[in-house]
């Protein structure tokens, strides 16, 4: 029997904290004690037009939260609970929900729509609630209009919630028919038409078959295009959103419509409300994204057999599209560079122009140059900024040959503008453009360098000067310096930056210390530039990098001394700690090898002490950065790292337990590998704890799946480090490896993303086997591994026959074959000879073009020869 929940739901929204808390607890208790009664009461409350709107809305929300959760584990639990309810309760709840769609109260209807979709998301894949779609569709032909509107909204949410393959094609057709009819100009009610248009946006993924049918596609496209001309701005916006989604989902079906769409989008960009214009620009950005992907994949050559051909829509649209986008650049907002959240038509237009340049390359240059030349020196800042932004936008895409002369001519002008232009906005864009020049046209691959002995001094002087400008401008100058340094990444022993190194480092440190450094990401940009300068530095300047060590350590030390900080200050402090740990990480990698290693390691104790204190601050970002830095330090320290283990270990364990911030967990797993390689057998005392945690991680369904392959690799690292002592972990790790191997052996029908994951899983498993075999080599305990050999060989055979492994897996797999033969020798000679891997797979690897695969295969061949010759 449903309990009276109205008062509880109202109290739960009370401004009085005590009342609210009490009500929330009562609701929770109710849910725990009698789930069926609880859900039924909520559904009844939602459906009851006599009840107050506020209690009904909250009833719907609580109901929705009882069906779904963001966190995978929790979500699974909720789904199981719903499915376990008795049929009569579920029928009553469904009936209440459907009834609510007819309520005169819009908010209540909308809440019900979302709840119905959640129930459908659980039940349709289980072939339950089969009559749902039919009963919704019957609503469509009903008056009054508000029921129709709520029903269309429900269909939209339903399409968002469930996957197309659980809905029969017949129902899909009916849903789409209902939705597209609702969008039609003939529909007199704007609310219905808007709901239908938004529903189509969600339902586009269901329309695969319909987009393959010319007549149906023509009809859908006509209705969508007509909706972009509706007098109602929200409908126009929603219709353009549909076009944006169609651009990426059905790119290859657009040839027929592209001219019309160009006209519609051009008109919207020039004349319509900004919310609509932004979507119209986004349509072209999406088209560019598609074409850039296609051209990248097929290297510009349409091979005929590729899935999606490039139709060069962007290239054909150039003469109209580029002027349209250039016009938008002049519509800047005064302070857009100071507002992190700003997004307007000028920004969208410039971004789109950049994508067009990437999609068409050299062809864009003549369309943009006249605009730049005309406006770059105009008295109005808007024109100067637009011209500069246009220039910066087209630097990625066209060839260096095409751009070189223009850029060389513009460089002096840019440096001058950076110093003298009165407009903050122009300076911001100019500094950004310089950064783009260095990013795309400066570096070892460019034949004629932009930066020469003649202008290097001036460029650096101007950038350093600009770092003292307003925070947003200074941030861009740091960015430019980042790419300037990056261009000298593989310059060899003598870097042109050496004479300025000290000055650059000093300037970046002063920028980071500016009082206003937390504005416009300035401090972050300064440290990032510092990192890149260090990363790309040469041995000539290593003493200066060494001098940086105590400076950064002192700064990190200072962040740890702060007393009683506000939440906001603490957050900034943690961010700074992250940056400083990141910087130390880069320095460790730079100095941690000969000839600077000895000097550098003098600071290791102190540095390690600081990192351990950072862990105490409990900030995920800082934690991750400190962990990465420690990994680098472990590598540099080698066996000496053992002295830090007693203190460091608990943080290592803590990181491995961090399921929620899975990046921290992933980074920690990597560091376990570093520690194993550094300590080798000395890591043994810590292995019980580490292995326990890793095994827990693998069994957890809360942990992000991307962390699992590295955990397997980590088994290999541990086994290689401790050798036969890994024996005690075999009984836990081998079954896990075996079942993961079975799962990852076949990937049939998986999409690219799944395929990539499967391969990374295979690689992790294989690295584990390699480490274990090599770890047991030369031990009398090798015979413990013999029982696993048949399965491992079978795994190798099956991934070979699957023919879908990538090169990394291929190399690891053939290595495992060799390791198995090497360690187990004649015990497995017969088994090896029976395997496909030892013949076809091995031969394929022996004739591979990839020399690392070939090398691994040669090693395997010799190991096998020995195993079977004995």
């Amino acid at each position, binding site marked *: 029997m449903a309990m009276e929940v109205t008062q509880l739901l109202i109290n739960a929204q009370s401004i009085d904290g005590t009342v609210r808390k009490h009500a929330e607890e009562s609701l929770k208790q109710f849910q725990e004690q009698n789930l069926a009664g609880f859900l039924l009461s909520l559904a009844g409350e939602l459906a009851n037009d006599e009840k107050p709107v506020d209690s009904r809305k909250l009833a719907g929300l609580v109901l929705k939260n009882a069906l779904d959760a963001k966190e995978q584990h929790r979500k699974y639990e909720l789904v199981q609970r719903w499915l376990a309810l008795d049929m009569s309760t579920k029928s009553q709840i469904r009936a209440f929900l459907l009834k609510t769609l007819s309520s005169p109260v819009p908010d209540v209807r909308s809440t019900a729509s979302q709840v119905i979709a959640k129930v459908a998301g659980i039940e349709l894949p289980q072939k339950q609630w089969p009559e749902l779609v039919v009963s919704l569709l019957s609503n469509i032909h009903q008056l009054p209009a508000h029921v129709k509107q709520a029903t269309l909204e429900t269909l939209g949410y339903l399409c968002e919630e469930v996957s197309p393959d659980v809905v029969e094609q017949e129902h899909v057709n009916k849903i789409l028919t209902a939705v597209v009819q609702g969008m039609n100009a003939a529909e007199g009610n704007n609310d219905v038409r808007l709901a239908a248009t938004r529903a189509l946006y969600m339902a586009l993924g269901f329309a695969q078959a319909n987009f393959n049918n010319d007549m149906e596609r023509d009809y859908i496209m006509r209705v969508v295009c007509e909706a972009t001309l509706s007098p109602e701005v929200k409908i126009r916006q929603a219709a353009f959103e549909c076009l944006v989604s169609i651009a990426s989902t059905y790119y290859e079906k657009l040839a027929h419509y592209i001219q019309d769409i160009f006209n519609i989008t051009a008109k919207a960009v020039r004349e319509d409300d900004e919310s609509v214009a932004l979507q119209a620009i986004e349509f072209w950005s999406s088209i560019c994204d598609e074409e850039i992907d296609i051209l990248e994949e097929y290297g510009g050559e349409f091979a005929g057999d590729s899935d999606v051909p490039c139709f060069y829509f962007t290239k054909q649209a150039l003469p109209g599209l580029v002027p349209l986008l250039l016009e938008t650049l002049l519509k800047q907002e005064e302070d857009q560079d100071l507002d992190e959240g700003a997004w307007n038509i000028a920004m969208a237009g410039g971004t789109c122009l950049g994508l067009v340049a990437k999609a068409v390359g050299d062809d864009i240059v003549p369309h943009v140059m006249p605009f730049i030349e005309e406006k770059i020196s105009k008295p109005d800042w808007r024109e100067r900024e637009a011209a500069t932004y246009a220039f910066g936008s087209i630097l990625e895409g066209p060839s260096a040959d095409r751009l070189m002369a223009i850029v060389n001519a513009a460089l002096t002008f840019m440096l001058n503008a950076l110093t003298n232009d009165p407009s903050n906005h122009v300076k911001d864009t100019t500094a950004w453009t310089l950064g783009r020049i260095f990013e795309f046209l400066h570096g070892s691959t460019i034949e004629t360098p932009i930066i020469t002995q003649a202008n290097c001094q001036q460029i650096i002087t101007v950038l350093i000067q600009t770092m003292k400008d307003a925070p947003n401008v200074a941030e861009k100058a740091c960015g430019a310096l980042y790419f300037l340094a990056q261009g000298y990444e593989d310059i060899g022993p003598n870097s042109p930056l050496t004479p300025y190194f000290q000055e650059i480092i000093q300037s970046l440190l002063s920028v980071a210390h500016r009082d206003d450094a937390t504005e416009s990401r300035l401090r972050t940009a300064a440290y990032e530039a510092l*990192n890149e300068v260090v990363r790309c530095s040469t041995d000539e300047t290593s003493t200066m990098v060494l001098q940086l060590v105590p400076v950064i350590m002192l700064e990190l030390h200072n962040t740890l001394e702060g007393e009683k900080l506000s939440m906001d200050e603490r957050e900034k402090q943690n961010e700074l700690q992250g940056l400083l740990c*990141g910087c130390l990480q880069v320095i460790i990698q730079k100095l941690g090898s000969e000839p600077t290693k000895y000097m550098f390691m003098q600071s290791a104790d102190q540095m390690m002490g600081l990192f351990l204190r950072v862990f105490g601050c409990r900030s995920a970002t800082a934690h991750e950065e400190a962990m990465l830095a420690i990994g680098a330090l472990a590598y540099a320290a080698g066996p000496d790292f053992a002295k830090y283990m007693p203190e460091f270990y608990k943080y290592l364990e803590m990181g491995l337990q961090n399921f929620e911030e899975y990046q921290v967990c992933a980074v920690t797993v990597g560091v376990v590998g570093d520690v194993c390689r550094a300590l080798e057998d000395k890591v043994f005392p810590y292995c019980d704890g580490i292995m326990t945690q890793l095994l827990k991680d693998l069994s957890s369904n809360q942990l992000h799946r991307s962390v699992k392959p590295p955990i397997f690799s980590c088994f290999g690292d541990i086994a290689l480090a401790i*050798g036969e002592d890994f024996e005690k972990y075999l009984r836990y790790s081998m079954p896990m490896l075996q079942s993961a191997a079975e799962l990852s052996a076949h990937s049939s029908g998986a999409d690219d993303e799944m395929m990539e994951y499967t391969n990374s899983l295979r690689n992790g498993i294989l690295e584990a086997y390699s480490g274990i075999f090599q770890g047991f080599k030369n031990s009398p305990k090798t*015979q413990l591994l013999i029982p696993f050999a048949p399965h491992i060989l079978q795994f190798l055979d099956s991934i070979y026959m699957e023919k879908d492994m990538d090169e990394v897996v291929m190399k690891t797999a053939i290595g495992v074959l060799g390791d198995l033969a090497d360690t*187990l*020798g004649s015990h497995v000679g017969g088994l090896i000879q029976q395997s496909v891997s030892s013949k076809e797979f091995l031969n394929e690897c022996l004739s591979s073009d990839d020399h690392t695969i070939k090398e691994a295969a040669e090693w395997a061949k010799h190991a096998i020869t020995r195993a079977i010759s004995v």
Partner: protein
Amino acid sequence: MAPHEIRRPFKRRPISDQQKRRELSLLRQSQHRSDAQQRARNLASSVISLQSSSPDVDPEILFEAVPELDEGTESESSSFDVRQASRLRGPEARKWFARQLMLPEWMIDVPDNLSRDWYVLARPAGKRCFVVSSDGTTVSRVRNGSILHHFPSALPGGARKKGASGPANSYSILDCIFHESDQTYYVIDMVCWRGYSLYECTAEFRFFWLQSKLAETGACDPPSFYHKFRFSAVPFFNCDQSGLHSAYTGSLPYVKDGLLFYNKHAHYHTGNTPLVLIWKDESCSQYVIDTDNNGEVPDQQHIVLELQEEGKLVTSDDPPVPFSCLNADFVKQSGLLSGSLIRFAIGDGGLNCVDGRFEKADLQYIGVSNRARAFADSYSKIMFQYMARHSPLKVEDLASTISHENQQDKTPEVEMSD
């Protein structure tokens, strides 16, 4: 249903520096993992590369008569590499073994924590060699890889005789110095024992194993029919005041040739390593200053360097330390080839050092070096020899470093009682 917000990155790099750091870390880790695996596969592979690079070596000879193992649990493949290598003939064998010894650097400055982290031992005078016992025989090879003796021994697998030396296929590798006057192999390090590799063990462990295991086999017994030479473990000491004193002045059954210092934490590392150091002075060695072919100390210090492309002259270190450069015309005229080892004398200009690092040298060309030589001199050897002639590192310097360390260290290590 709310409109869908679109917002693309504006004036921003597509990946953050943090993401870049993360990716670089992953790259570094996977590189190191693959290096570690490569090392683990290494010993066997060095045989392979020899075999495949020399087609005239008959694989039948290489793989002959490896006995089938019917009993015991030890995997024969594990012992394969060294036993196979022991069958290598002629230049192949020399090439392989020449690379297997751990070679000390010369002590040109005193390492930190000498008393805590280092052992000291008196090096017996004689030929450094690698002794491999396997398949019923024992072979010793000197530093350049050529055979010194081929004999039966009481080492595991060292003689064709049933008995306590373990299964027929077990093998051992010892790092020794052959002391002529008492015809004894003084064992300074243990590399493999009964098929167990000790390459990846610390010196601390290897020395402990050496002291406890060697005597068990009867290898330290006087010579007999199945045991042609006596073996003896060299005593070692913690490098504190008393240890240094014992090694330096203590009376030992052999003639000393300097002191060897082993870092306790170091693994057996083939080739030059700074974690093992040699030091000599007149009172503990007859050979402090290098002699020429006639056994005379030349007036000027002689050094041997390797000629590289473009006339560069380098030491045998890894990476090589460039010392000087030969004029291209001179190289051509003298018919010198890149890779040749060339002998020079150091002139009156001497060696110039800045901040402890070598800067330039006054070299006088003598000629191509003796053909028996496998390597150029190492940097530390050249510097040590130079210092020995000008301002040697004295035993007092070592002792004072240790006492200075002890003063700083309020809780000294437990003294070894000997």
